[in-house]
């Protein structure tokens, strides 16, 4: 009797989930809600929520349901979160992950689940889509190198910097950023006299700051989150006065609106990124408005960070592609995958389409940090560069010869 009762309950539960699955499409989202990149993860989620507010959660007669999991920017935390979402929460689509090393790990993991669809949320390491890409992994943001396009040229030609030093966090995304900077800056004849790499989550930068060379025109900072704020604070205490250049998550609202006055060292800093806070474009302005309307002022930044924009774009791409196929996930989601591969989205930060590796081709921005007069800092557009592809304009063979971004690659020379 007991066994029969158990069977009945099980059957009921099963039929329940079956009926459930018809109405809902479950999407798993990961963000770095712990550790050094917490602030980045939180704003990423704001971008995601903004996209849902703007686009709605309906796909045909189905409704999207999102399950969020937290990571800490390490690859194993990302794989753990994604695995939990798939195995425990039974999600059908992944919107993940945020950070560079996570991206490489999740891409590799995606190959073990070829039936599911992975849309990259914000990670920007080159390797993720350039080396052995997963057929079910789609990235609607540019990589770290694409986000630096234009910066080397601006620094060399307009600012007249000839010799720079770099300080960066020791992982794939920052390698990719320095890669993009070095190719352009060194290609024009600039020199990089030293490259310092610090572990993600470094608290005490005093010795790193002391080791910065004195005889350089500018110092490039490839730091993010808590690391960037700690660096700036200690740089101020050490009386640092050099010209600065910034990477894409360094010159970003996550840092520009941090508490304290150490960020003022960044005024006038030049940078490049997939967005610029003060861009006049109506689509961008509309997005900023939607972001501001979605949250009370004390619960958001004055203007969306790069992470918010990336999460917005990837959520938008996913929803639009799902609507195109009317939420049809049959045949191992093949229709959705085909739709994602050829969709072209009219994102707030410029049009985005994917190449044959399912990597975004998009618009890049060279910026300069300005004070709005009321103590808030913003990145001001200096130059807009459309249609930046992953090989940065090089032909595929030449680009392959440069090698993969690492602590020492690329060499500082013209390729």
């Amino acid at each position, binding site marked *: 009797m007991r066994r029969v009762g158990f069977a009945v309950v099980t059957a009921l539960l099963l039929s329940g989930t079956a009926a459930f699955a018809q109405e809902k499409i479950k999407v798993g989202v990961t963000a770095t*809600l*712990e*550790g*050094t990149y*917490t*602030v980045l*993860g*939180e704003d990423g989620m704001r971008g995601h929520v903004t996209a849902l507010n703007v686009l709605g959660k309906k796909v045909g007669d189905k409704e999207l349901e999102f399950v969020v999991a937290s990571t*800490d920017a390490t690859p194993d935390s990302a794989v753990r979160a994604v695995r939990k979402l798939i195995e425990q929460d039974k999600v059908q689509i992944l919107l993940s992950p945020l950070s560079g090393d996570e991206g490489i790990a999740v891409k590799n993991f995606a190959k073990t689940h070829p039936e599911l669809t992975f849309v990259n949320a914000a990670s920007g390491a080159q390797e993720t889509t350039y080396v052995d890409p997963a057929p079910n992994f789609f990235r609607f943001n540019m990589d770290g190198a694409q986000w630096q396009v234009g910066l080397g040229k601006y620094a060399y030609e307009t600012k007249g910097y000839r010799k720079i030093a770099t300080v960066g966090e*020791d992982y794939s995304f920052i390698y990719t950023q320095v890669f993009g900077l070095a190719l352009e800056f060194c290609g024009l004849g600039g020199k990089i006299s030293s490259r*310092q*790499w*610090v*572990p993600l*989550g*470094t*608290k*005490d930068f*005093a*010795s*790193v*700051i*002391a*080791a910065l060379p004195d005889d350089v025109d500018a110092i490039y900072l490839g730091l993010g*989150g*808590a690391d960037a*704020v*700690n660096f700036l*604070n*200690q740089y*101020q*205490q*050490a*009386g640092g006065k050099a010209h600065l250049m910034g990477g894409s998550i360094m010159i970003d609202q996550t840092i520009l609106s*941090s*508490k*304290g*006055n*150490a960020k003022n060292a960044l005024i006038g800093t030049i940078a490049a990124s997939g967005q610029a806070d003060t861009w006049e474009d109506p689509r961008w302005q509309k997005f900023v408005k939607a972001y501001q309307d979605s949250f009370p002022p004390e619960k958001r930044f004055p203007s969306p960070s790069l992470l918010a924009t990336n999460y917005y774009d990837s959520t938008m791409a996913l929803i639009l592609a799902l609507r195109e196929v009317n939420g049809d996930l049959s045949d191992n989601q093949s229709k959705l995958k085909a739709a994602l591969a050829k969709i072209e989205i009219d994102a707030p930060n410029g049009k985005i389409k994917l190449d044959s590796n399912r990597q975004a081709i998009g618009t890049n921005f060279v910026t300069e940090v300005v004070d709005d007069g009321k103590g808030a800092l913003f990145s001001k557009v200096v130059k807009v560069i459309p249609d930046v592809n992953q090989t940065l304009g090089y032909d595929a063979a030449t680009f392959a010869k440069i090698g993969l971004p690492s602590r020492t690659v690329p060499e500082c020379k013209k390729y």
Partner: protein
Amino acid sequence: MSRFIERHPIWSLVILLAVACLAWLIIAVWPPGLEEAVGRKKVFLSAVFNGITLGGLYFLVASGFTLIFGLMRNVNLAHGSLYLFGGYVGYGISTATGSWILAFIAAFIVVAVVGVLLQLLVFRRMEGQDLRQTMVTIGLSIVFADLMLWAFGGDFYQIQTPAWLVGPVQLPLMTAMKSSGEAVFLQYPLVRLVIFCGSVVIGVLMWLALNRTRVGMIVRAGVDDREILAATGVQIQLVFVLVFALGAGLAGIAGVVGGTFQSISPGEDTRFLLASLVVVIVGGMGSIPGAALGAVIIGLAEQLGSVYIPTYAIVVTFLIMVLVLALRPQGLLARR
């Protein structure tokens, strides 16, 4: 001191030579050959200073930890949470009142009260049961971490350095000689020096209190034999509460210090718990001078490591711990 030299003549010579070498490295202007081989003197000197000042911060956290352990034989694994909580309290007070000094006082008092509550409500109920206390403190540290994440969010907070402490100060140590013969002196962040002096003062006061006062005598007696001390009529529970309050309060102060020259965010609790464990293991469980020595060694190892062998910097600290555990398991300055 003289007995040590008599007993270990060779070691004394080695230590003396090392100190002389270090003194020369710090005071002299480096010959060009040396600069080429190991880099500029400014970098070395800054790393040494950073190591020592970071050691000051580690000492503040670890001294409370070692004090509590020394008296109560209680490994309080929630010590890191007290540090983090102190940092948050300090941040709140300094932004509300604008006073940095007040932040220290408030953090000390509030965290000391938390320490008293911990002692009264938790540890007193499981006196003498080491394993149970350890497990409970691990559990508490996880609960505290989540409570603080809930209350303060994942954001990183930085306590504003007062204006009179911002910026560098020139130290009378030459780093290089310009071609014109003019000396270049080391520029060093003032706030780190002030914090370091503060921790030295606290360390000396603690040592004096332990070794020169009646209360200190009671505490030391308690470290040696609790039962006999209780039998002589001393209110041992009161002593426990006081020591716990002091140890916790020191962690709170350290939180403000950490929030001033670094930053506080979730995860810092375990980082500083680990750091104080390493410091205390290297220096010797329960010994205040040991905590000071261990803190400076670990601070120096971290900073010199991050400059000269950046890839392996994290390993160096643990290598030191392994070496100490292998060669002198009771710690460098343990009494027994």
